[in-house]
């Protein structure tokens, strides 16, 4: 999380101040959640340009709608809902050019990620292959399962929160997560 500091005002307080006309409070919320929103958008779309656009769009929509935010869920959950819906819509359309999708061979040629000169050992190679296969499997999940997996396993949201984000029951969220993990298990059976 991109929180500025422990002593910074709580979300509810910032929302209250923003609704009272304090624009700077909105900026603090953007700074607080920009990385999480970007991460979710990137994980769903797999594309930096899209994630950038979607994360910005999330805050633009939040700016307009924040005065109607009733606080029934946390602000983070509310923002997650906006970014998830926007990202899923984009990912569903054919507009997204999928992520850099480096193959294991590409990675081996280049060395470990971010260290072009570093030779890749067996363990690192296995890890890279696992990650590449996992990425591929996640990308082929049905959209709701994919979002649920991302929100639960990567963003650490509780099922209750995921249910609010996805507009479904807690039981459905659990079922989606279970099916997503089952699918990954089947896809990665030979290497895990």
């Amino acid at each position, binding site marked *: 999380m991109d929180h500025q500091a422990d002593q910074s005002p709580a979300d509810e307080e910032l929302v209250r101040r923003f609704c009272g006309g304090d624009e700077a409070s909105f900026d603090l919320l953007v700074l607080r959640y920009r990385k999480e929103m970007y991460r979710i958008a990137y994980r769903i779309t797999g594309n930096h340009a899209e994630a950038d656009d979607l994360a910005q769009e999330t805050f633009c929509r939040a700016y307009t709608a924040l005065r109607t935010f009733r606080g029934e869920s946390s602000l983070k959950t509310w923002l997650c809902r906006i970014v998830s819906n926007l990202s899923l819509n984009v990912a569903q359309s054919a507009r997204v050019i999928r992520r850099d999708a480096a193959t294991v061979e590409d990675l081996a040629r280049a060395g470990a990620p971010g260290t072009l000169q570093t030779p890749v050992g067996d363990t690192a190679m296995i890890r890279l292959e696992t*990650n590449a296969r996992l990425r591929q499997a996640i990308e082929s999940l049905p959209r709701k399962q994919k979002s649920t997996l991302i929100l639960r396993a*990567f963003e650490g949201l509780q099922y209750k929160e995921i249910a609010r984000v996805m507009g479904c029951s807690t039981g459905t969220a659990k079922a989606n997560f*279970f099916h997503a993990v089952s699918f990954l298990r089947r896809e990665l059976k030979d290497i895990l």
Partner: protein
Amino acid sequence: MTRLDCERALRHLADPLAGPPDEPVRQHLHSCASCAGEMRAFRAVLEAAADFRQSDVPDPGEPYWNRFLPSVRARIALRQDAGMPSERHPRRIAAAAVLLMILAAYGALILHPPAPGPDGAAGSVRAGASLDEAGRRVDDALRRMPAASGEVAADMLGLDPFQEIGAGEILDAMKEIERPPSLSGSWAGLEDDELERLLDRLDLSQTLELRAELAAEKS
């Protein structure tokens, strides 16, 4: 071992991140190889996912994050310009005025390019000279245009408001706008339906004063 025990264990598998299984489930996993195998497989997937989580989103870097808030703010400001009635109207009028100047500057040239001269070259020279003059007028208009109007004008023309807009970009965008056949360098030459179409195309439907002004010019 009962089917109920297996179902209960599988329910736990649906939420392994919630913590370790409770005692009855743990006991069941000790005695049921099938469920224990499922549990191990699910854990392996989630461990792989946890590892994957560390590396699957490349950090765009500090310069990107530093630009993020200003970009959001610029986007909000642009929408406010385009969408808030209290501020929108005068700015749209200003933008429309600029567009009219651009049309006046380029309209005749676009629609009625100079005919080639007898030697085939003079026309090109004249066209070049006219284009230069029109370009100067547009550049001058753009320089005098308030920044907010520039954004609105860019929006109308379908240009990226964050790009610097020059006469060339304006001209290219203008070429995409439907050309009324009777336009001859003046708005007064437009038929009513052509004027309506052009205004709609320019998204000026709400600038009623401008329409009134143009109607007065026509009459």
